[in-house]
C-alpha cells in the first residue's frame, strides 16, 4: 500500500494488521528510550491547511520515534498566504525530496488530489467532512484494548454526524470489524442520505445508551447554530449531551470516547470525563502508536497491505 487515504483502503484485514503492528509500537512507546531506527533517513512532512495541533504533534511524535526526519509546513506563515496554489505548494515540497506527506485540509478530497501529483506516500490527516482514517484506527485500537474486539459490539456515535470526518471513518472502520453502529443525532445533523451506510439511526439517546458497549461523542461546533441546524446549544445538550445523569444509563463497563477537543458542558458533562470508563486520554496516547504503525507500514515495511 502506498497511501492511506481512506479506511476503505485497508479493509478488515488491513485494519487488523495495523492493530497488530500497533501492539509492537505501544511497547516501543513504553520504553525508557521510546525510539527505534526503523525510518532513519526518511522524511515526513506535515502539510496542515487547518489548525490541528494535536493531530500534527501526534504524527510528528510518531515520525520522530521512528527516527524519521520531520518537516512542518505551516500554512499560516507560508507562500500559501501569498496566493500559491495547492498543487504548486505540494510540488515544491516534493522537490525537496520527501518520503511521506501528512495532509490535513478543510476541503474534502484534497489528499486524493495530492496523491495524483506526488510520488511520495500521502497520509490523510483529515479532509473536510470526509475522512480521518488514523483517528478511526486509534479508536478501533482503544476499543480493542478495553473490550478485546469489535466483533458483535455495539457502538453509538452521537452528535454532528453530517459535518464529521471522524464519524465517516469510524462508521467504515467499526462496521468493517464487525461492530453494530447506531448514529444518534438530531435530523438536521445527519447526512442528507444514509444509503449504503450499514448503520441504524436514532434520535433518542436515552433509548440507545443502555444497549451499547461504547458511546462515541462528537464535538459540537458552535457555528452550527448560525446555520439554522439547531435552535440552541442548550437544547442540544438536553437532548444529546452525555450528562452525568445520562451516563448512568450506560451498561457496566461501556466505554465513553471523544476525539477531542471537547466542549465540556455541551456534548459531554464536565464530570463525565473523570469516570473510569472514559478512555479519552487513552485515545490520545494510542494515537502516537497507531500513527507509528501507519508510517512504518507505508514507508518501512516493504509489505503490501492491500486488502
Amino acid at each position, binding site marked *: 500500500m502506498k497511501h492511506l487515504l481512506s479506511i476503505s483502503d485497508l479493509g478488515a484485514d488491513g485494519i487488523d*494488521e495495523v492493530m497488530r*503492528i500497533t*501492539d*509492537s509500537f*505501544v*511497547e*516501543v512507546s513504553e*520504553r*525508557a*528510550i521510546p*525510539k*527505534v*531506527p*526503523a*525510518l532513519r533517513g526518511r522524511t515526513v512532512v506535515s502539510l496542515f491547511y487547518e489548525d490541528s495541533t494535536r493531530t500534527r504533534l501526534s504524527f510528528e511524535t510518531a515520525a520522530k520515534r*521512528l527516527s524519521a526526519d520531520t518537516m512542518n509546513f505551516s500554512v499560516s506563515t507560508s507562500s500559501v498566504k501569498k496566493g500559491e496554489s495547492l498543487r504548486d505548494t505540494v510540488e515544491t515540497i516534493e522537490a525537496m525530496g520527501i518520503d511521506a506527506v501528512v495532509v490535513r485540509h478543510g476541503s474534502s478530497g484534497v489528499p486524493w488530489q495530492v496523491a495524483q501529483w506526488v510520488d511520495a506516500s500521502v497520509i490523510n490527516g483529515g479532509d473536510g467532512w470526509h475522512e480521518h482514517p488514523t483517528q478511526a484506527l486509534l479508536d478501533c485500537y482503544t476499543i480493542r484494548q478495553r473490550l478485546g474486539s469489535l466483533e458483535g459490539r455495539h457502538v453509538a456515535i452521537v452528535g454532528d454526524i453530517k459535518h464529521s470526518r471522524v464519524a465517516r471513518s469510524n462508521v467504515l472502520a467499526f462496521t468493517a470489524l464487525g461492530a453494530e453502529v447506531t448514529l444518534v443525532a438530531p435530523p438536521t445533523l445527519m447526512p442528507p442520505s444514509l444509503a449504503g451506510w450499514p448503520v441504524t439511526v436514532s434520535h433518542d439517546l436515552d433509548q440507545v445508551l443502555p444497549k451499547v458497549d461504547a458511546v462515541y461523542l462528537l464535538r459540537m461546533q458552535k457555528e452550527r447554530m448560525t446555520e439554522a441546524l439547531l435552535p440552541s446549544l442548550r437544547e442540544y445538550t438536553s437532548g444529546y449531551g452525555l450528562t452525568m445523569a445520562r451516563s448512568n444509563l450506560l451498561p457496566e463497563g461501556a466505554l465513553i470516547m471523544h476525539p477531542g477537543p471537547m466542549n465540556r458542558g455541551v456534548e459531554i458533562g464536565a464530570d463525565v470525563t473523570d469516570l473510569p470508563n472514559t478512555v479519552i486520554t487513552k485515545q490520545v496516547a494510542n494515537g502516537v502508536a497507531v500513527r507509528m504503525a501507519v508510517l*512504518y507500514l507505508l*514507508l*518501512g*515495511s*516493504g*509489505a*503490501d497491505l492491500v486488502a
Partner: protein
Amino acid sequence: MDPDDVRRAITRISHEIVERNQGLAHVVLVGLQTGGVPLAGMLAEACHRIEGVEVPVGTLDVAFYRDDIGLRPVLPEAVTEMTFDITGKMVVLVDDVLFTGRTIRAALNALNDYGRAKSVQLAVMIDRGHRELPIRPDFVGKNLPTRRDEMVDVSAQGVMIGDVVVKP
C-alpha cells in the same frame, strides 16, 4: 539433530552459561522472535534445574532495527517483552540459527535501548556459517555447514535442513 540431541545441547549450553558467568546471579536470557523464544525458555528451565535459580527471560523483536527495512517485507513477528532492566546484567541473546549475523547486529542495537548491559553473549542452537559481519557465538548447539540457499529449521522436535532431519 533429533529431540534428544536438542535437549542435550540445551543442558550443555546451560552448564556453559553458568560456568562462564560464575553462576546465574546477574544473567538474563533474551530470546529473539520468533525462533529464539522457545529455546530461551528451555535454557531457563535447564538453568533452574542446575542452579535452582529463576533466570529472567525476555523476548525481543528486531524488525524495527533491521538493515533491510524497505528492501523486503519486514514486519514485527510479535511484541517485544523486556520486563526487566538490563543495566549491569550479563545478557545472553538466544536464537535458533546463526547465519549472516545481521539479526544479531539488529538485536545488539535494540538491546542498547533497554539499558547498558555489562556484557552480551550469544547462544545459538545452530551455527550454519556464511557470516557477513564480525559476529561469533559464545555458545553453540551444533556447527552445521550448509549451502547459502538451504533452509534450516529448529524446534524442540529437532533440527531440519530442507526436510531432512540432521543426525549428529
